[in-house]
């Protein structure tokens, strides 16, 4: 039994495999959010609210992305599924998870303290955008992917970096940044466009994946092949997913923001 999904070099089978590290992570995430909300409610003297449905949805999305079969396929067999994991972990789940903390819980971040100050800094728009871009770039570099995906710890590291980067990126869009002016609707839309639709990093990665004459990632090129799937086609699909999937998610987000702005305006 493996703790976390990673590239094993074994031929793929559709036999279910347990990854208890994934389950533990989801449980810890849920418990952590509950504990945070409880602390916030107690500090404010308010009753604790039940978990937001979107937070629960975010946990489900994360679990699907990390656990068998998507987790196993993306960790060691198909670059396209690895990219699907990235979209789910960095772009779909985080905005849902960010609905988890209550206003009372968020208020705790405004208190003094080095750790809280660091969190406030990291989820500020510009640092969050930079952090997201750097992590996306670094975690898609072939030497990094090929080295880290071969071990459970490395694979888990990449997954956690994606989730963390996604939370930081989406924070200014979904929630107010503590101790900072509210991000206006037009600025939110521009932020998403800059970070996703016109990101030079995403463009570059998509270009390499789609147009490279040889597969980018050795871990997927040399994985035991799945019937009917060539490594080259798989990499091209990964690039297409990043491009189209990312644009689609951005479009949805911008649309939601636009309609909310329109509604508030009158």
């Amino acid at each position, binding site marked *: 039994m493996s703790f976390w999904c990673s*590239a*094993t*070099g*074994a*031929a793929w089978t559709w036999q279910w495999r347990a990854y208890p590290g994934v389950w533990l992570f989801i449980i810890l995430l849920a418990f952590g959010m509950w504990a945070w909300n409880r602390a916030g409610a107690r500090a404010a003297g308010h009753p604790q609210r039940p978990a937001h449905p979107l937070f629960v949805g975010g946990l489900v999305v994360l679990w699907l992305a990390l656990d068998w079969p998507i987790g196993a396929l993306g960790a060691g067999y198909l670059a396209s599924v690895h990219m699907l994991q990235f979209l789910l972990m960095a772009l779909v789940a985080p905005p849902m998870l960010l609905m988890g903390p209550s206003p009372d819980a968020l208020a705790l971040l405004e208190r003094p303290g080095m750790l809280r100050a660091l969190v406030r800094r990291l989820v500020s728009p510009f640092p969050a955008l930079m952090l997201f871009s750097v992590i996306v770039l670094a975690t898609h570099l*072939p*030497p*990094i*992917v*090929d*080295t880290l995906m*071969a071990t459970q710890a490395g694979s888990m590291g990449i997954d956690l970096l994606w989730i963390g980067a996604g939370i930081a990126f989406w924070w200014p869009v979904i929630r107010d940044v503590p101790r900072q002016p509210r991000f206006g609707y037009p600025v939110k839309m521009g932020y998403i466009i800059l970070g996703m639709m016109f990101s030079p990093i995403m463009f570059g990665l998509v270009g390499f994946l789609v147009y490279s*004459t*040889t*597969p980018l*990632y*050795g*871990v997927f*090129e*040399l*994985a*035991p*092949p799945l019937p009917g799937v*060539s*490594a*080259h086609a798989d990499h091209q699909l990964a690039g297409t997913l990043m491009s189209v999937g990312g644009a689609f998610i951005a479009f949805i987000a911008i649309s939601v923001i636009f309609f909310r702005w329109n509604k508030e305006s009158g």
Partner: protein
Amino acid sequence: MSRLRVLALANLAPVLMACGDRGASAPAFHGVAVTTPIAKPSFTLTDFNGRPYDFAAETRDKVALLFFGYTHCPDVCPLHMANIAAVLRQMPAEDKARVVTVFVTTDPERDTPTRLREWLANFDATFIGLTGTKEELVKAQQSLGLAEATREYLNADSVNYFVGHAAQVFAFARDGFAYTIYPFGIRQEDWANDLPRLIRDATGADIRRDLAAQAKARQLNMAPEQAAAVTMGGLIVTQAVVAEPATQDEAAAYLTLKNDTPQEDTIVAIAADLAVRGEIHETMGEGEMRHMMSTPTLVIPARTETKLAPGGTHVMLLQLRKKLVAGDTVTLFLSLARAGAVEVRAPVVPYADLEKALGLSGRGGK
């Protein structure tokens, strides 16, 4: 043997680059250079149309890529074929016409001519599949210094089996000599680099000159004289013994591995011809708390000699196919992340003679 499971890491590229320098003005060969060029062997087998195929005659003045594998292989064989086919598809037609890819089956029972033709057609319709009698196939393998392929059954009463076979592709240049071989882990970009150079050189002179320049410029990773025992990066097994077991259930194997390279390697799988499964075990705890724990991989640090010895990390061979007695020989198949497939023959020795056989002065370990 169990499937050859070799994890390809992106830093295989730097390992290959020990064979040359990608950043140098003349691109280096990415394949593993053999110490002595291997003459194209002369054997005649049967192609998948039922016709005799004289390997040397049919591939004269062409780049001949020769590989021994089987169609039920889950990883190494389809990957080699797929990567070669992918690179050939992108080459100009006149270059592609200069390359012949020949797949010789190591599983003649299941690889019928029809099966061979259909399987190879998935990759490239021009690939040639060869079969023959067991004796003919063994002779063909032995002509290249390769050990006879062996079977590993999934369990004691299973009809399904894996076939242990050499994992490298022999690339014979147009002059009839193989100057480089390509173990599993070779990528499409490596073929894309080397194949055009093999195609262009009709006499082998340029290849020899370039490899000599690579050797002069930096230390070239060379395969030993026996290409059958090819290891990338100079990792070799200097000692290997199996302790005579008390039962037919399991036996312990002890090895000494010498890694002369500047990079660590990792054993990712172990199999044996006389056991259904092989595992790496670490001995944990002390005294009454001592117990063995299976570990999925074993790191062989750079520039070290790693001893798997009694009392420490060792190999356990499980579900033995027969009761091993002193005098038997077990063939161990190691899969390494960098070096690829390493095959070693380990004699079975009485437990009392183990330390002497391993050259240990006392209790040893990794």
